């Protein structure tokens, strides 16, 4: 389920079937140094991954709007806010919470997070539209799907 009117209408009717919350973590910066490209690619990948996971598991995954953070910011603060999101979401019957990120900085805070952190190393450069990258991403996504299914 996506954060749009049609999906939410459907979600309200079938809440009990949608037991998995997926929160994509989207890094952002306006600091145009050599890091910026990497951060942008991470963001694009997050979008591709989360929308594809939502498409494949539409009836069971609720995809929230991306949690956007300054890539330099203190992750401790971010964790606090994220846990508030989760707390709020738990009013609905969610059994599983996943955070999706390509940013290794979150890894250190994993134990404080109220949910499972799915961190993956990302392609750092190269063309996201090239056939080779596409098939690699597809492959990665199907592995993530397996991982999520193992929690169900």
């Amino acid at each position, binding site marked *: 389920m996506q954060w749009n009117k049609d999906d939410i209408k459907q979600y309200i009717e079938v809440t009990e*079937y*949608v037991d998995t919350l997926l929160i994509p973590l989207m890094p952002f910066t306006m600091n145009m140094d050599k890091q910026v490209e990497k951060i942008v690619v991470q963001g694009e990948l997050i979008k591709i991954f989360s929308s594809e996971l939502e*498409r*494949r*598991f*539409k*009836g*069971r995954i609720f995809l929230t709007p991306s949690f956007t953070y300054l890539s330099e910011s203190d992750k401790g603060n971010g964790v606090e806010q994220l846990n508030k999101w989760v707390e709020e979401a738990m009013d609905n019957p969610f059994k599983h919470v996943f955070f999706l990120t390509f940013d290794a900085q979150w890894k250190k805070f994993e134990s404080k997070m109220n949910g499972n952190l799915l961190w993956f190393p990302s392609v750092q450069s190269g063309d996201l539209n090239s056939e080779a990258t596409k098939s690699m991403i597809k492959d990665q996504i199907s592995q993530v799907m397996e991982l999520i299914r193992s929690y169900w």
Partner: protein
Amino acid sequence: MSEKRKQVSRRQFLNYTLTGVGGFMGAAMLAPMVRFAIDPALQTSAQGDFKAVAQVDEITTEPQRIDWTIDQVDAWYESEVTKSAWVYKTEDGDILALSPVCKHLGCVVTWQGSEEYQDQFFCPCHDGRYYKDGVNVPNTPPAAALDVFQHKVEDGTLYLGKAVPREEL
């Protein structure tokens, strides 16, 4: 009144102008009506929506997943959308292209997606199942059979159109 030039009389002048103006107004009203009346004839035929997706001789009796992309125009943006179908030849040689979208809550089903049911489609979300012909297995969550893509074959190429629910076939 001797020099009676070829003058336009007041009556004629009014006649001309009123017919002219009235004609325009009439046309302005009629044109859209005519447009609406013949609209179905002007619509690009459904043929245009068909996409070549595979060669017929690659299709076996085992369902295969075929992906293709279409340009989808939503209200605010245009995007390239990947579509998928499970395609196979039925026993009487016909081609059946099933939509992979589960009729329960819209997840994507896979052929042989479950170890236990090797000759069925399986939905990973809530264990919905469908027989090979796309009909839902009773007592699993889905309440309807998988949608079927309209298809046609030209020169050995398979074209797929829109997915339609079973009842409408």
